[in-house]
C-alpha cells in the first residue's frame, strides 16, 4: 500500500513540542502532518513529572519560559481542556546553608526576569509549609509556577491539532528524510510518502539520526527519569516541591495522589522503553516519607519512567538547521521541556512563517556543538546513575 501526502510542514515527533507547533502552524493557515512512530504524547511528553516551572532554569531559557508561561492559563481556549493546570507555586528547598546561598544567588541573577521569587527562611517554612520536614533550611518560592497533568496536556494538544485539520499520523515512523527540490521528501511507515516545504525535527530522544543525516551530528543521549505515585489522600501539599541539588521533586494532584520523582530508571531490552529500578523506586519513596513526615504512611501504587533526550550542557536544541534551509530542530530538553514546550511550539511556527522569532533562542543553536567532536550515543542510558541535579529535574 502506498500513499502520498503533500503538505507545507512535516513534523517528526508527536510529543508536546511537535503537537503544539502543529496546532500553531495550522492556526497560521499552513497544511501540516504530525508523524509519530508510536502514539502522540506517549513518550517523555506524556509520562513526565508534570511540573510547570520557570524557577531554576538557566537564565538563557527564561525569555522562552516566560512566553510559555503565558500559554498555560489559556489551555482551555487553546486545546479544549485545562490539563489540570494549577498555578500552585513552586517551592525549591535548601537542605543546607550552602544550598540556600545558591538559591539566593539565583534569585539575584534572575531579578529582572519577572519570576518574582520569594526567599523563605526556616521559620517562614515552618509557618507556611509545616508539612515539610523541619530539617529543611529554607527555600525559594515562585508563586506563578505550578503543575499540570502531562498525560492530558500532550494528548490534548495532539487531539486539538487533529481537530484543527492537522494530519495526525500515529504508528507512522519516519524512515528517511531527503532534500527534494526546494523542499523535502519523507518516507514513512505504511508506505506513506510525504512532500513538504519544511521539516521540524521534534523527535526527542530519537532526533539524533535525523539531525545527523543533514550533516549536524549532536551529542544527544538518553535519560530515564523515575517516578512514583501514591494512593490519594487528603490535600496536604499546597505547592510543587523541588530541591536544590536535586534528589527529589514532588507534587500533590487535585485528586489527592502524590507524584514523586528523583532517581533514574534503566532502559529495557528495547532501549526505547524503560522501567524504574526497584531500589531506585524505594529510594524515591523513602525520601518522600522523610521529607513529608505526615504523609509517610501512604502506599505507593505505581512507578513509571520515560525516555528523554538529553544534551551535555542541559540546554535544548531549538534551532534552524545550519546546513539545510527549511529544516528546524527542537529536541534535547534534558528533563525540563514540559513547561516551555507550548512556547517552543509557537517559536517554531514563527520560524516557519517568518524565518525568525522575537524570542531569543541563540543559546539553543545546533551550531554550538560544531567545535566539539559530536557523538550520538543513543540507547546508552548514559547519565542513568548520575545524581539528579537542578537542571536534570525531569521537566519540572
Amino acid at each position, binding site marked *: 500500500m502506498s500513499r502520498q501526502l503533500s503538505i507545507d510542514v512535516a513534523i517528526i515527533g508527536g510529543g508536546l513540542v511537535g503537537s503544539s507547533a502543529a496546532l500553531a502552524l495550522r492556526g497560521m493557515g499552513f497544511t501540516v502532518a504530525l508523524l509519530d512512530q508510536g502514539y502522540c504524547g506517549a513518550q517523555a511528553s506524556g509520562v513526565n513529572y508534570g511540573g510547570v516551572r520557570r524557577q531554576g532554569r538557566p537564565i538563557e531559557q527564561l525569555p522562552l519560559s516566560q512566553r510559555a508561561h503565558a500559554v498555560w492559563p489559556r489551555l482551555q481556549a487553546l486545546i479544549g481542556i485545562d490539563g489540570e493546570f494549577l498555578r500552585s507555586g513552586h517551592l525549591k528547598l535548601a537542605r543546607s546553608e550552602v544550598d540556600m546561598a545558591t538559591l539566593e544567588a539565583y534569585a539575584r541573577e534572575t531579578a529582572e526576569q519577572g519570576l518574582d521569587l520569594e526567599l523563605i527562611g526556616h521559620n517562614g517554612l515552618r509557618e507556611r509549609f509545616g508539612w515539610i520536614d523541619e530539617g529543611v533550611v529554607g527555600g525559594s518560592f515562585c508563586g506563578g509556577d505550578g503543575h499540570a497533568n502531562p498525560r492530558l496536556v500532550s494528548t490534548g494538544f495532539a487531539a486539538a491539532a487533529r481537530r484543527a485539520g492537522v494530519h495526525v499520523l500515529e504508528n507512522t515512523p519516519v524512515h528517511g528524510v531527503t532534500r527534494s527540490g526546494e523542499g523535502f521528501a519523507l518516507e514513512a511507515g505504511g508506505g506513506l510518502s510525504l512532500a513538504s516545504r519544511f521539516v521540524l525535527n521534534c523527535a526527542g530522544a530519537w532526533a539524533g539520526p535525523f539531525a545527523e543525516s543533514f550533516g549536524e551530528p549532536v551529542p544527544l543521549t538518553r535519560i530515564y527519569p523515575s517516578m512514583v505515585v501514591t*494512593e*490519594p489522600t*487528603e490535600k496536604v501539599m499546597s505547592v510543587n516541591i523541588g530541591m536544590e541539588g536535586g534528589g527529589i521533586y514532588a507534587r500533590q494532584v487535585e*485528586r*489527592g495522589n502524590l507524584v514523586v520523582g528523583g532517581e533514574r530508571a534503566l532502559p529495557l531490552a528495547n532501549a526505547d522503553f524503560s522501567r524504574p529500578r526497584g531500589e531506585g523506586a524505594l529510594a524515591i519513596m523513602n525520601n518522600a516519607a522523610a521529607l513529608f513526615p505526615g504523609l*509517610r*504512611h501512604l*502506599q505507593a501504587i505505581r512507578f513509571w519512567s520515560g525516555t528523554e533526550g538529553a544534551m551535555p550542557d542541559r540546554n535544548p536544541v531549538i534551532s534552524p538547521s545550519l546546513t539545510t534551509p527549511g529544516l528546524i530542530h527542537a529536541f534535547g530538553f534534558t528533563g525540563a521541556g514540559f513547561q516551555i514546550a507550548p512556547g517552543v511550539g509557537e517559536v517554531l511556527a514563527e520560524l516557519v512563517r517568518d524565518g525568525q522569532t522575537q524570542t531569543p533562542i541563540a543559546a539553543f543553536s545546533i551550531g554550538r556543538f560544531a567545535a566539539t567532536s559530536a557523538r550520538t550515543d543513543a540507547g546508552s542510558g548514559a547519565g542513568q546513575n548520575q545524581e539528579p541535579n537542578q537542571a536534570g529535574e525531569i521537566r519540572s
Partner: protein
Amino acid sequence: MPLLHRIARKDHRPIGFVLDGAPCEGREGDTLLTAILAQRERLRASDFSGEPRAGFCQMGACQDCWVALENGERLRACSTALVAGMRIVTGQRRAA
C-alpha cells in the same frame, strides 16, 4: 445490620479491638474485613465520591478494602489478621 453473618467460629475466643473509636469484638481467626463487616455494613468510603464500600474480591486483588490504624498505618483488611488491641479507622472520607 452487619454485612457478614458467621456460620462458624461463633464461639471462638473473642478478640477486642477499637473501630472508629468504639470498642468491638472479633473472633480468633478473623481477618480485619470479617471482624469489621461482622459489626457493620461498610468498610471504607471510596476515594473520590465517598461512596460506601465493603471490599469486593477478598483475595488481595481489588484493593478496595484498605483501612488505617489510628497511627496512620494502612492495612488491607481482607489479608490482614485481626490482632487484639488494633485501633482501626474506616471513616477517613477525604475533604472534598
